[in-house]
Protein backbone atom coordinates (compact mmCIF):
# COMPACT_ATOMS: atom_id res chain seq x y z
CA UNK A 1 0.00 0.00 0.00
CA UNK A 2 1.32 3.42 -0.91
CA UNK A 3 1.88 5.58 2.14
CA UNK A 4 -0.39 8.61 2.13
CA UNK A 5 1.42 11.86 1.57
CA UNK A 6 1.02 14.29 4.39
CA UNK A 7 0.32 17.97 3.89
CA UNK A 8 3.41 19.94 3.05
CA UNK A 9 2.17 23.36 3.90
CA UNK A 10 3.99 25.34 6.47
CA UNK A 11 1.10 27.29 7.98
CA UNK A 12 -0.16 26.23 11.39
CA UNK A 13 -3.03 23.71 11.48
CA UNK A 14 -6.54 25.16 11.63
CA UNK A 15 -5.43 28.53 10.27
CA UNK A 16 -8.09 28.43 7.53
CA UNK A 17 -10.76 27.02 9.86
CA UNK A 18 -10.09 29.66 12.50
CA UNK A 19 -10.25 32.46 9.95
CA UNK A 20 -13.50 31.02 8.59
CA UNK A 21 -15.04 30.84 12.06
CA UNK A 22 -14.11 34.47 12.74
CA UNK A 23 -15.56 35.55 9.38
CA UNK A 24 -18.71 33.53 10.02
CA UNK A 25 -19.23 35.27 13.38
CA UNK A 26 -18.70 38.65 11.70
CA UNK A 27 -21.29 37.75 9.04
CA UNK A 28 -23.65 36.48 11.73
CA UNK A 29 -23.48 39.75 13.63
CA UNK A 30 -23.86 41.81 10.44
CA UNK A 31 -26.58 39.51 9.11
CA UNK A 32 -28.80 39.56 12.20
CA UNK A 33 -28.43 43.35 12.37
CA UNK A 34 -29.55 43.79 8.75
CA UNK A 35 -32.34 41.27 9.33
CA UNK A 36 -33.58 43.20 12.35
CA UNK A 37 -33.45 46.51 10.47
CA UNK A 38 -35.26 44.90 7.51
CA UNK A 39 -38.00 43.57 9.80
CA UNK A 40 -38.47 47.00 11.41
CA UNK A 41 -38.51 48.83 8.06
CA UNK A 42 -40.97 46.30 6.63
CA UNK A 43 -43.26 47.15 9.53
CA UNK A 44 -42.69 50.92 9.22
CA UNK A 45 -41.54 51.77 5.64
CA UNK A 46 -41.73 55.49 6.45
CA UNK A 47 -38.53 55.13 8.54
CA UNK A 48 -36.40 55.01 5.39
CA UNK A 49 -38.70 56.99 3.14
CA UNK A 50 -36.83 58.69 0.30
CA UNK A 51 -33.88 56.29 0.49
CA UNK A 52 -34.48 53.72 -2.23
CA UNK A 53 -31.47 51.61 -1.24
CA UNK A 54 -33.03 51.10 2.19
CA UNK A 55 -36.42 49.98 0.90
CA UNK A 56 -37.84 46.97 2.79
CA UNK A 57 -37.54 44.50 -0.08
CA UNK A 58 -33.91 45.34 -0.83
CA UNK A 59 -33.01 45.12 2.86
CA UNK A 60 -34.67 41.71 3.05
CA UNK A 61 -32.67 40.59 -0.02
CA UNK A 62 -29.49 41.84 1.66
CA UNK A 63 -30.37 40.04 4.90
CA UNK A 64 -31.06 36.76 3.07
CA UNK A 65 -27.68 36.99 1.38
CA UNK A 66 -25.80 37.96 4.54
CA UNK A 67 -27.30 35.16 6.64
CA UNK A 68 -27.36 32.30 4.12
CA UNK A 69 -24.21 33.03 2.13
CA UNK A 70 -22.37 35.07 4.74
CA UNK A 71 -22.98 33.26 8.01
CA UNK A 72 -24.10 29.75 7.04
CA UNK A 73 -21.86 29.19 4.02
CA UNK A 74 -18.81 30.54 5.83
CA UNK A 75 -19.38 28.40 8.91
CA UNK A 76 -19.78 25.53 6.42
CA UNK A 77 -16.32 26.31 5.06
CA UNK A 78 -15.06 26.28 8.64
CA UNK A 79 -16.59 22.82 9.15
CA UNK A 80 -14.91 21.52 6.00
CA UNK A 81 -11.53 23.05 6.89
CA UNK A 82 -11.68 21.96 10.54
CA UNK A 83 -13.27 18.52 10.47
CA UNK A 84 -12.01 16.86 7.27
CA UNK A 85 -8.37 17.14 8.43
CA UNK A 86 -9.28 15.74 11.85
CA UNK A 87 -11.18 12.82 10.35
CA UNK A 88 -8.41 12.10 7.86
CA UNK A 89 -5.61 12.69 10.39
CA UNK A 90 -3.87 15.09 8.05
CA UNK A 91 -3.52 18.84 7.82
CA UNK A 92 -5.74 20.75 5.41
CA UNK A 93 -4.12 20.60 1.98
CA UNK A 94 -3.59 24.34 1.76
CA UNK A 95 -4.32 26.51 4.80
CA UNK A 96 -3.48 29.73 2.97
CA UNK A 97 -5.80 28.86 0.08
CA UNK A 98 -8.54 28.03 2.60
CA UNK A 99 -8.18 31.33 4.42
CA UNK A 100 -7.97 33.21 1.12
CA UNK A 101 -11.12 31.61 -0.25
CA UNK A 102 -13.06 32.66 2.84
CA UNK A 103 -11.65 36.18 2.61
CA UNK A 104 -12.46 36.41 -1.11
CA UNK A 105 -15.94 34.98 -0.49
CA UNK A 106 -16.63 37.66 2.12
CA UNK A 107 -15.28 40.43 -0.11
CA UNK A 108 -17.38 39.39 -3.13
CA UNK A 109 -20.47 38.97 -0.96
CA UNK A 110 -20.04 42.45 0.52
CA UNK A 111 -19.68 44.03 -2.91
CA UNK A 112 -22.61 41.98 -4.20
CA UNK A 113 -24.88 43.09 -1.33
CA UNK A 114 -23.99 46.75 -1.99
CA UNK A 115 -24.91 46.25 -5.65
CA UNK A 116 -28.25 44.69 -4.65
CA UNK A 117 -29.00 47.69 -2.43
CA UNK A 118 -28.42 50.11 -5.30
CA UNK A 119 -30.73 48.19 -7.61
CA UNK A 120 -28.78 45.36 -9.24
CA UNK A 121 -31.19 42.79 -7.86
CA UNK A 122 -31.69 39.73 -10.07
CA UNK A 123 -35.25 39.23 -8.85
CA UNK A 124 -34.99 35.60 -7.75
CA UNK A 125 -35.35 34.52 -4.11
CA UNK A 126 -31.95 33.65 -2.59
CA UNK A 127 -30.30 34.44 -5.94
CA UNK A 128 -30.48 38.21 -5.75
CA UNK A 129 -26.78 38.92 -6.30
CA UNK A 130 -25.62 40.28 -9.68
CA UNK A 131 -24.25 37.80 -12.23
CA UNK A 132 -20.62 38.94 -11.84
CA UNK A 133 -20.69 38.19 -8.11
CA UNK A 134 -22.34 34.83 -8.81
CA UNK A 135 -19.54 33.83 -11.15
CA UNK A 136 -16.87 34.77 -8.60
CA UNK A 137 -18.67 32.94 -5.79
CA UNK A 138 -19.05 29.80 -7.91
CA UNK A 139 -15.30 29.83 -8.59
CA UNK A 140 -14.59 30.20 -4.88
CA UNK A 141 -16.83 27.20 -4.15
CA UNK A 142 -14.78 25.20 -6.66
CA UNK A 143 -11.61 26.21 -4.78
CA UNK A 144 -13.14 25.02 -1.50
CA UNK A 145 -13.99 21.71 -3.18
CA UNK A 146 -10.43 21.41 -4.49
CA UNK A 147 -8.94 22.03 -1.04
CA UNK A 148 -11.34 19.58 0.59
CA UNK A 149 -10.84 16.96 -2.11
CA UNK A 150 -7.04 16.99 -1.99
CA UNK A 151 -7.14 16.88 1.82
CA UNK A 152 -9.25 13.73 1.67
CA UNK A 153 -7.07 12.15 -1.01
CA UNK A 154 -3.99 12.74 1.18
CA UNK A 155 -5.60 11.48 4.39
CA UNK A 156 -3.76 9.02 6.64
CA UNK A 157 -6.91 7.37 8.01
CA UNK A 158 -8.20 5.51 4.97
CA UNK A 159 -11.69 4.81 6.24
CA UNK A 160 -13.55 8.06 5.95
CA UNK A 161 -15.75 8.69 8.97
CA UNK A 162 -19.45 9.54 8.46
CA UNK A 163 -18.98 13.31 8.88
CA UNK A 164 -16.52 13.25 6.00
CA UNK A 165 -19.18 11.81 3.66
CA UNK A 166 -21.55 14.67 4.39
CA UNK A 167 -18.95 17.43 4.28
CA UNK A 168 -17.28 16.21 1.09
CA UNK A 169 -20.61 15.62 -0.67
CA UNK A 170 -21.79 19.10 0.34
CA UNK A 171 -18.56 20.63 -0.99
CA UNK A 172 -19.09 18.71 -4.24
CA UNK A 173 -22.69 19.71 -4.92
CA UNK A 174 -22.40 23.31 -3.67
CA UNK A 175 -20.86 24.78 -6.88
CA UNK A 176 -23.30 22.80 -9.01
CA UNK A 177 -26.34 24.00 -7.07
CA UNK A 178 -25.09 27.57 -6.99
CA UNK A 179 -24.40 27.73 -10.73
CA UNK A 180 -27.74 26.20 -11.72
CA UNK A 181 -29.68 28.42 -9.33
CA UNK A 182 -28.02 31.63 -10.42
CA UNK A 183 -27.83 31.13 -14.18
CA UNK A 184 -30.04 33.89 -15.59
CA UNK A 185 -30.91 31.88 -18.71
CA UNK A 186 -34.20 30.25 -17.79
CA UNK A 187 -37.57 31.78 -18.55
CA UNK A 188 -41.21 31.23 -17.67
CA UNK A 189 -42.26 28.14 -15.73
CA UNK A 190 -38.77 26.61 -16.15
CA UNK A 191 -37.37 29.59 -14.25
CA UNK A 192 -39.85 28.83 -11.46
CA UNK A 193 -38.88 25.15 -11.37
CA UNK A 194 -35.17 25.98 -11.34
CA UNK A 195 -35.61 28.44 -8.48
CA UNK A 196 -37.57 25.83 -6.53
CA UNK A 197 -34.83 23.27 -7.14
CA UNK A 198 -32.21 25.81 -6.10
CA UNK A 199 -33.81 26.87 -2.81
CA UNK A 200 -34.57 23.28 -1.86
CA UNK A 201 -31.11 21.99 -2.82
CA UNK A 202 -29.52 24.88 -0.96
CA UNK A 203 -31.35 23.76 2.17
CA UNK A 204 -31.20 19.98 1.83
CA UNK A 205 -28.03 19.13 -0.10
CA UNK A 206 -25.77 21.94 1.04
CA UNK A 207 -26.73 23.41 4.42
CA UNK A 208 -28.40 20.32 5.92
CA UNK A 209 -25.59 18.08 4.67
CA UNK A 210 -23.02 20.36 6.31
CA UNK A 211 -25.12 20.43 9.48
CA UNK A 212 -25.41 16.66 9.68
CA UNK A 213 -21.67 16.39 9.04
CA UNK A 214 -21.07 18.64 12.04
CA UNK A 215 -23.58 16.79 14.24
CA UNK A 216 -22.11 13.36 13.41
CA UNK A 217 -18.73 14.64 14.56
CA UNK A 218 -19.54 16.85 17.55
CA UNK A 219 -21.96 14.53 19.36
CA UNK A 220 -19.67 11.45 19.46
CA UNK A 221 -16.61 13.54 20.35
CA UNK A 222 -18.29 15.60 23.04
CA UNK A 223 -19.95 12.57 24.66
CA UNK A 224 -16.98 10.24 24.19
CA UNK A 225 -19.32 7.56 22.81
CA UNK A 226 -18.79 5.88 19.46
CA UNK A 227 -21.42 6.44 16.80
CA UNK A 228 -24.43 4.24 17.56
CA UNK A 229 -24.88 2.82 14.05
CA UNK A 230 -22.88 3.32 10.87
CA UNK A 231 -25.57 1.46 8.91
CA UNK A 232 -28.15 3.99 10.06
CA UNK A 233 -25.74 6.81 9.14
CA UNK A 234 -25.39 5.25 5.71
CA UNK A 235 -29.19 5.25 5.38
CA UNK A 236 -29.25 8.91 6.44
CA UNK A 237 -26.64 9.90 3.87
CA UNK A 238 -28.03 8.10 0.86
CA UNK A 239 -31.68 8.93 1.57
CA UNK A 240 -30.75 12.61 1.89
CA UNK A 241 -28.96 12.67 -1.46
CA UNK A 242 -31.58 10.43 -3.07
CA UNK A 243 -34.53 12.64 -2.19
CA UNK A 244 -32.94 16.02 -1.56
CA UNK A 245 -32.83 17.18 -5.16
CA UNK A 246 -36.38 16.18 -6.08
CA UNK A 247 -38.49 18.13 -3.63
CA UNK A 248 -38.01 21.68 -4.95
CA UNK A 249 -41.35 22.14 -6.67
CA UNK A 250 -43.14 22.00 -3.30
CA UNK A 251 -41.95 25.59 -2.73
CA UNK A 252 -43.96 26.73 -5.75
CA UNK A 253 -46.80 24.26 -5.48
CA UNK A 254 -49.18 27.23 -5.76
CA UNK A 255 -47.75 28.11 -9.17
CA UNK A 256 -48.59 26.77 -12.61
CA UNK A 257 -46.22 23.82 -12.94
CA UNK A 258 -46.63 20.36 -14.50
CA UNK A 259 -48.70 18.15 -12.18
CA UNK A 260 -46.16 15.33 -12.11
CA UNK A 261 -43.41 17.73 -10.97
CA UNK A 262 -45.57 18.76 -8.03
CA UNK A 263 -46.48 15.15 -7.22
CA UNK A 264 -42.84 14.07 -7.21
CA UNK A 265 -41.96 17.03 -4.98
CA UNK A 266 -44.65 16.19 -2.41
CA UNK A 267 -43.67 12.51 -2.34
CA UNK A 268 -39.96 13.30 -1.99
CA UNK A 269 -40.64 15.80 0.79
CA UNK A 270 -42.06 12.89 2.78
CA UNK A 271 -39.02 10.75 1.90
CA UNK A 272 -36.88 13.52 3.41
CA UNK A 273 -38.34 12.61 6.82
CA UNK A 274 -36.09 9.54 6.68
CA UNK A 275 -32.63 11.18 6.65
CA UNK A 276 -33.51 13.72 9.32
CA UNK A 277 -35.33 11.37 11.65
CA UNK A 278 -32.77 8.60 11.21
CA UNK A 279 -29.91 11.01 11.97
CA UNK A 280 -31.73 12.20 15.08
CA UNK A 281 -32.39 8.63 16.26
CA UNK A 282 -28.79 7.60 15.59
CA UNK A 283 -27.20 10.57 17.32
CA UNK A 284 -29.55 10.64 20.28
CA UNK A 285 -28.76 6.94 20.76
CA UNK A 286 -25.07 7.82 20.49
CA UNK A 287 -25.35 10.32 23.31
CA UNK A 288 -27.39 7.97 25.53
CA UNK A 289 -26.11 7.89 29.09
CA UNK A 290 -24.01 11.04 28.62
CA UNK A 291 -26.66 13.74 28.50
CA UNK A 292 -25.40 15.26 31.72
CA UNK A 293 -22.47 16.55 29.63
CA UNK A 294 -24.85 18.88 27.82
CA UNK A 295 -24.92 21.09 30.89
CA UNK A 296 -21.31 22.12 30.28
CA UNK A 297 -20.77 21.31 26.59
CA UNK A 298 -22.42 23.93 24.40
CA UNK A 299 -21.26 22.08 21.30
CA UNK A 300 -23.27 19.05 22.38
CA UNK A 301 -26.17 21.23 23.45
CA UNK A 302 -26.41 23.08 20.13
CA UNK A 303 -25.87 19.94 18.03
CA UNK A 304 -28.68 18.08 19.78
CA UNK A 305 -30.90 21.18 19.66
CA UNK A 306 -30.24 21.43 15.92
CA UNK A 307 -31.30 17.82 15.50
CA UNK A 308 -34.47 18.34 17.54
CA UNK A 309 -35.38 21.44 15.53
CA UNK A 310 -34.59 19.58 12.29
CA UNK A 311 -37.08 16.87 13.25
CA UNK A 312 -39.76 19.52 13.80
CA UNK A 313 -38.82 21.47 10.66
CA UNK A 314 -38.87 18.55 8.27
CA UNK A 315 -42.18 17.38 9.77
CA UNK A 316 -43.68 20.82 9.16
CA UNK A 317 -42.25 20.87 5.61
CA UNK A 318 -43.89 17.52 4.86
CA UNK A 319 -47.17 18.68 6.38
CA UNK A 320 -47.08 21.92 4.39
CA UNK A 321 -46.41 20.03 1.16
CA UNK A 322 -49.76 18.21 1.38
CA UNK A 323 -51.81 19.82 -1.44
CA UNK A 324 -54.82 20.63 0.76
CA UNK A 325 -52.59 22.46 3.26
CA UNK A 326 -50.31 23.95 0.63
CA UNK A 327 -53.31 25.54 -1.09
CA UNK A 328 -54.26 27.10 2.22
CA UNK A 329 -50.88 28.44 3.36
CA UNK A 330 -49.34 29.13 -0.06
CA UNK A 331 -48.68 32.79 -0.95
CA UNK A 332 -48.35 33.72 2.73
CA UNK A 333 -45.63 34.25 5.32
CA UNK A 334 -46.03 30.58 6.37
CA UNK A 335 -43.24 29.57 3.96
CA UNK A 336 -41.02 32.29 5.42
CA UNK A 337 -41.69 30.81 8.87
CA UNK A 338 -40.45 27.40 7.73
CA UNK A 339 -37.33 28.93 6.18
CA UNK A 340 -36.77 31.00 9.33
CA UNK A 341 -36.92 27.82 11.44
CA UNK A 342 -34.49 26.08 9.09
CA UNK A 343 -32.01 28.96 8.82
CA UNK A 344 -31.97 30.41 12.34
CA UNK A 345 -32.96 27.21 14.13
CA UNK A 346 -31.62 24.12 12.40
CA UNK A 347 -28.63 25.20 10.31
CA UNK A 348 -27.49 27.91 12.72
CA UNK A 349 -27.60 25.49 15.67
CA UNK A 350 -25.27 23.12 13.82
CA UNK A 351 -23.01 26.08 13.04
CA UNK A 352 -22.96 27.09 16.72
CA UNK A 353 -22.17 23.47 17.64
CA UNK A 354 -19.07 23.63 15.47
CA UNK A 355 -18.02 26.98 16.89
CA UNK A 356 -18.50 25.97 20.52
CA UNK A 357 -16.71 22.68 19.93
CA UNK A 358 -13.83 23.76 17.70
CA UNK A 359 -13.03 27.37 18.54
CA UNK A 360 -11.47 26.60 21.97
CA UNK A 361 -9.27 23.95 20.34
CA UNK A 362 -8.13 26.44 17.72
CA UNK A 363 -7.23 29.24 20.11
CA UNK A 364 -6.13 26.93 22.93
CA UNK A 365 -8.50 28.51 25.44
CA UNK A 366 -11.83 27.55 27.00
CA UNK A 367 -14.82 29.79 26.45
CA UNK A 368 -14.37 33.00 28.39
CA UNK A 369 -17.88 33.21 29.83
CA UNK A 370 -20.23 30.31 30.48
CA UNK A 371 -22.96 32.81 31.33
CA UNK A 372 -22.64 34.46 27.91
CA UNK A 373 -22.72 31.02 26.25
CA UNK A 374 -25.79 30.07 28.26
CA UNK A 375 -27.48 33.36 27.41
CA UNK A 376 -26.62 32.82 23.73
CA UNK A 377 -28.20 29.37 23.77
CA UNK A 378 -31.42 30.26 25.56
CA UNK A 379 -31.95 33.60 23.80
CA UNK A 380 -31.39 32.03 20.40
CA UNK A 381 -33.80 29.23 21.22
CA UNK A 382 -36.40 31.70 22.53
CA UNK A 383 -36.03 33.92 19.45
CA UNK A 384 -36.32 30.99 17.07
CA UNK A 385 -39.38 29.63 18.89
CA UNK A 386 -41.11 32.99 19.06
CA UNK A 387 -40.29 33.90 15.46
CA UNK A 388 -41.38 30.55 14.07
CA UNK A 389 -44.70 30.58 15.91
CA UNK A 390 -45.42 34.21 14.98
CA UNK A 391 -44.58 33.71 11.30
CA UNK A 392 -46.61 30.51 10.99
CA UNK A 393 -49.50 32.23 12.75
CA UNK A 394 -49.13 35.24 10.41
CA UNK A 395 -49.29 32.88 7.43
CA UNK A 396 -52.42 31.22 8.78
CA UNK A 397 -54.01 34.62 9.48
CA UNK A 398 -53.14 35.88 5.99
CA UNK A 399 -54.66 32.79 4.50
CA UNK A 400 -57.84 33.25 6.53
CA UNK A 401 -58.04 36.87 5.31
CA UNK A 402 -57.53 35.83 1.69
CA UNK A 403 -60.15 33.11 1.97
CA UNK A 404 -62.67 35.66 3.18
CA UNK A 405 -61.90 37.86 0.18
CA UNK A 406 -59.76 40.45 1.98
CA UNK A 407 -56.24 41.64 1.17
CA UNK A 408 -53.71 39.44 3.02
CA UNK A 409 -51.24 42.18 3.90
CA UNK A 410 -52.91 44.16 6.63
CA UNK A 411 -55.28 43.76 9.51
CA UNK A 412 -54.87 44.00 13.24
CA UNK A 413 -53.85 40.38 13.78
CA UNK A 414 -51.23 40.39 11.01
CA UNK A 415 -49.78 43.70 12.21
CA UNK A 416 -49.66 42.50 15.83
CA UNK A 417 -47.93 39.29 14.80
CA UNK A 418 -45.41 41.31 12.80
CA UNK A 419 -44.47 43.13 16.02
CA UNK A 420 -43.86 39.73 17.66
CA UNK A 421 -41.67 38.70 14.71
CA UNK A 422 -39.61 41.88 15.06
CA UNK A 423 -39.22 41.11 18.77
CA UNK A 424 -37.98 37.62 17.88
CA UNK A 425 -35.39 39.06 15.49
CA UNK A 426 -34.28 41.49 18.21
CA UNK A 427 -33.80 38.65 20.72
CA UNK A 428 -31.83 36.63 18.18
CA UNK A 429 -29.66 39.65 17.32
CA UNK A 430 -28.79 40.33 20.98
CA UNK A 431 -27.94 36.64 21.44
CA UNK A 432 -25.48 36.74 18.55
CA UNK A 433 -23.83 39.88 19.93
CA UNK A 434 -23.24 37.87 23.12
CA UNK A 435 -21.60 35.09 21.09
CA UNK A 436 -19.34 37.58 19.30
CA UNK A 437 -18.33 39.18 22.60
CA UNK A 438 -17.62 35.79 24.14
CA UNK A 439 -15.53 34.65 21.16
CA UNK A 440 -13.54 37.88 21.20
CA UNK A 441 -12.78 37.60 24.94
CA UNK A 442 -12.07 33.86 24.68
CA UNK A 443 -9.17 34.37 22.27
CA UNK A 444 -7.49 36.70 24.80
CA UNK A 445 -8.65 35.79 28.27
CA UNK A 446 -10.08 32.26 28.34
CA UNK A 447 -8.52 29.57 30.55
CA UNK A 448 -6.08 27.25 28.75
CA UNK A 449 -7.81 24.23 27.22
CA UNK A 450 -6.98 20.59 28.02
CA UNK A 451 -6.27 19.35 24.50
CA UNK A 452 -5.68 15.71 25.51
CA UNK A 453 -9.07 15.40 27.15
CA UNK A 454 -10.68 16.67 23.96
CA UNK A 455 -9.14 14.20 21.54
CA UNK A 456 -11.23 13.43 18.45
CA UNK A 457 -10.50 9.72 18.86
CA UNK A 458 -14.01 9.03 20.10
CA UNK A 459 -15.42 10.01 16.74
CA UNK A 460 -13.56 7.19 15.08
CA UNK A 461 -14.11 4.56 17.73
CA UNK A 462 -16.63 2.73 15.62
Amino acid sequence: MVEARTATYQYEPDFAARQSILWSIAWLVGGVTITLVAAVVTMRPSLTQGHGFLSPALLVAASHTAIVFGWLATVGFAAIFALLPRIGEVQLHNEVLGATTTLAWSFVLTVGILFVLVGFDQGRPFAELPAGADLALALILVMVLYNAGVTVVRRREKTLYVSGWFLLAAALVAPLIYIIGNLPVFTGYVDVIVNGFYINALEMLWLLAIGLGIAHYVIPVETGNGLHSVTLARATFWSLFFAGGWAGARIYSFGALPAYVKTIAVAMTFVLLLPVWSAAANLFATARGRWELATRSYGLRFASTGLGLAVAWIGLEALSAVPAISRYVGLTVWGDGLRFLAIFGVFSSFGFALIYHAYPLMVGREWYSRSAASFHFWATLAGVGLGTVSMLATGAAQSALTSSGQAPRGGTVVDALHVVTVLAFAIIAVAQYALAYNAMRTSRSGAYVDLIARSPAAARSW
Partner: protein
Amino acid sequence: MKLRADRRIGLLLGGVLLLTFAAIGATIALPASDASLATKPKTLSAAEARGLRIYRAEGCWFCAATTQKAKGRSQSSLSTSTYAGRSPSFLGIERSGPDLANPTTATKSALVKYLRKQHGKVPSFGYLSDKDLNALATFLLSLH
Protein backbone atom coordinates in the same frame (compact mmCIF):
# COMPACT_ATOMS: atom_id res chain seq x y z
CA MET B 1 -17.40 -2.82 9.77
CA LYS B 2 -15.82 -0.94 6.90
CA LEU B 3 -17.56 -1.01 3.54
CA ARG B 4 -16.01 -0.15 0.21
CA ALA B 5 -18.05 3.01 -0.15
CA ASP B 6 -16.38 4.42 2.93
CA ARG B 7 -12.88 3.87 1.59
CA ARG B 8 -13.51 4.48 -2.10
CA ILE B 9 -14.33 8.15 -2.05
CA GLY B 10 -14.78 8.21 -5.82
CA LEU B 11 -17.64 5.76 -5.51
CA LEU B 12 -19.25 7.88 -2.82
CA LEU B 13 -18.96 11.13 -4.75
CA GLY B 14 -19.94 9.45 -8.02
CA GLY B 15 -23.13 8.21 -6.37
CA VAL B 16 -23.91 11.69 -5.04
CA LEU B 17 -23.36 13.26 -8.46
CA LEU B 18 -25.46 10.61 -10.17
CA LEU B 19 -28.37 11.19 -7.78
CA THR B 20 -28.10 14.98 -8.14
CA PHE B 21 -28.07 14.83 -11.94
CA ALA B 22 -30.98 12.37 -11.90
CA ALA B 23 -32.95 14.90 -9.85
CA ILE B 24 -32.01 17.73 -12.21
CA GLY B 25 -32.95 15.62 -15.23
CA ALA B 26 -36.34 14.56 -13.88
CA THR B 27 -37.44 17.79 -12.24
CA ILE B 28 -35.90 20.41 -14.55
CA ALA B 29 -34.81 19.00 -17.92
CA LEU B 30 -37.88 16.84 -18.46
CA PRO B 31 -40.52 19.54 -17.85
CA ALA B 32 -38.35 22.09 -19.69
CA SER B 33 -38.50 19.94 -22.82
CA ASP B 34 -42.28 19.54 -22.65
CA ALA B 35 -43.51 21.28 -25.81
CA SER B 36 -47.14 21.22 -24.64
CA LEU B 37 -46.30 23.65 -21.83
CA ALA B 38 -44.41 26.13 -23.98
CA THR B 39 -46.34 29.32 -24.66
CA LYS B 40 -45.42 32.38 -26.65
CA PRO B 41 -44.20 35.20 -24.42
CA LYS B 42 -45.89 38.55 -24.46
CA THR B 43 -43.81 41.23 -26.20
CA LEU B 44 -43.20 44.25 -23.98
CA SER B 45 -43.08 47.82 -25.23
CA ALA B 46 -39.99 49.92 -24.44
CA ALA B 47 -41.79 51.61 -21.53
CA GLU B 48 -43.06 48.28 -20.16
CA ALA B 49 -39.57 46.78 -20.39
CA ARG B 50 -38.15 49.78 -18.53
CA GLY B 51 -40.90 49.42 -15.94
CA LEU B 52 -40.06 45.74 -15.50
CA ARG B 53 -36.42 46.61 -14.84
CA ILE B 54 -37.47 49.13 -12.20
CA TYR B 55 -39.89 46.60 -10.69
CA ARG B 56 -36.97 44.22 -10.29
CA ALA B 57 -34.38 46.79 -9.16
CA GLU B 58 -36.64 48.26 -6.47
CA GLY B 59 -37.40 44.81 -5.08
CA CYS B 60 -41.17 45.13 -5.73
CA TRP B 61 -41.16 41.46 -6.77
CA PHE B 62 -40.38 40.37 -3.24
CA CYS B 63 -43.73 41.31 -1.68
CA ALA B 64 -46.10 42.02 -4.55
CA ALA B 65 -47.95 39.64 -6.83
CA THR B 66 -47.96 39.92 -10.59
CA THR B 67 -49.49 36.54 -11.24
CA GLN B 68 -52.29 36.22 -8.72
CA LYS B 69 -55.29 36.87 -10.91
CA ALA B 70 -57.93 37.38 -8.27
CA LYS B 71 -58.36 37.47 -4.54
CA GLY B 72 -59.17 34.29 -2.73
CA ARG B 73 -57.71 30.88 -3.53
CA SER B 74 -56.88 31.80 -7.08
CA GLN B 75 -53.58 30.12 -7.74
CA SER B 76 -55.17 27.12 -9.40
CA SER B 77 -56.36 29.49 -12.11
CA LEU B 78 -52.79 30.28 -13.10
CA SER B 79 -51.37 28.77 -16.27
CA THR B 80 -47.81 28.56 -17.52
CA SER B 81 -48.64 31.33 -20.00
CA THR B 82 -48.96 33.71 -17.04
CA TYR B 83 -45.21 34.04 -16.83
CA ALA B 84 -44.26 32.84 -20.30
CA GLY B 85 -40.94 34.24 -21.47
CA ARG B 86 -40.33 36.12 -18.25
CA SER B 87 -36.85 35.92 -16.79
CA PRO B 88 -37.03 36.10 -13.86
CA SER B 89 -40.56 34.82 -13.52
CA PHE B 90 -41.31 37.02 -10.48
CA LEU B 91 -43.47 34.30 -8.99
CA GLY B 92 -41.76 35.00 -5.66
CA ILE B 93 -42.22 33.12 -2.44
CA GLU B 94 -44.23 35.54 -0.33
CA ARG B 95 -47.35 37.55 -0.96
CA SER B 96 -47.53 40.13 1.78
CA GLY B 97 -47.92 42.91 -0.79
CA PRO B 98 -50.82 43.93 -2.97
CA ASP B 99 -52.09 42.03 -5.99
CA LEU B 100 -50.65 44.12 -8.79
CA ALA B 101 -52.31 42.08 -11.50
CA ASN B 102 -55.62 43.46 -10.25
CA PRO B 103 -54.93 47.07 -9.28
CA THR B 104 -57.76 49.05 -7.81
CA THR B 105 -56.31 52.07 -9.60
CA ALA B 106 -56.83 51.58 -13.31
CA THR B 107 -55.34 54.67 -14.93
CA LYS B 108 -51.69 55.46 -15.34
CA SER B 109 -51.84 58.92 -13.81
CA ALA B 110 -53.70 57.61 -10.76
CA LEU B 111 -51.20 54.78 -10.37
CA VAL B 112 -48.25 57.18 -10.58
CA LYS B 113 -49.92 59.29 -7.88
CA TYR B 114 -50.45 56.16 -5.78
CA LEU B 115 -46.79 55.11 -6.10
CA ARG B 116 -45.52 58.49 -4.92
CA LYS B 117 -46.95 57.96 -1.41
CA GLN B 118 -46.70 55.28 1.22
CA HIS B 119 -49.77 53.08 1.66
CA GLY B 120 -49.61 50.87 4.73
CA LYS B 121 -46.61 48.59 4.25
CA VAL B 122 -46.14 49.60 0.62
CA PRO B 123 -43.32 52.16 0.71
CA SER B 124 -43.31 55.43 -1.19
CA PHE B 125 -41.49 55.42 -4.52
CA GLY B 126 -41.47 59.20 -4.66
CA TYR B 127 -37.68 59.22 -5.02
CA LEU B 128 -37.99 57.79 -8.54
CA SER B 129 -37.98 60.14 -11.51
CA ASP B 130 -41.23 60.91 -13.34
CA LYS B 131 -40.00 58.88 -16.30
CA ASP B 132 -39.31 55.85 -14.08
CA LEU B 133 -42.61 56.15 -12.24
CA ASN B 134 -44.48 56.33 -15.53
CA ALA B 135 -42.60 53.30 -16.85
CA LEU B 136 -43.34 51.36 -13.65
CA ALA B 137 -47.02 52.25 -13.88
CA THR B 138 -47.08 51.24 -17.56
CA PHE B 139 -45.59 47.85 -16.67
CA LEU B 140 -48.04 47.29 -13.81
CA LEU B 141 -51.00 48.15 -16.02
CA SER B 142 -49.74 45.70 -18.64
CA LEU B 143 -50.21 42.85 -16.17
CA HIS B 144 -53.97 42.70 -16.40
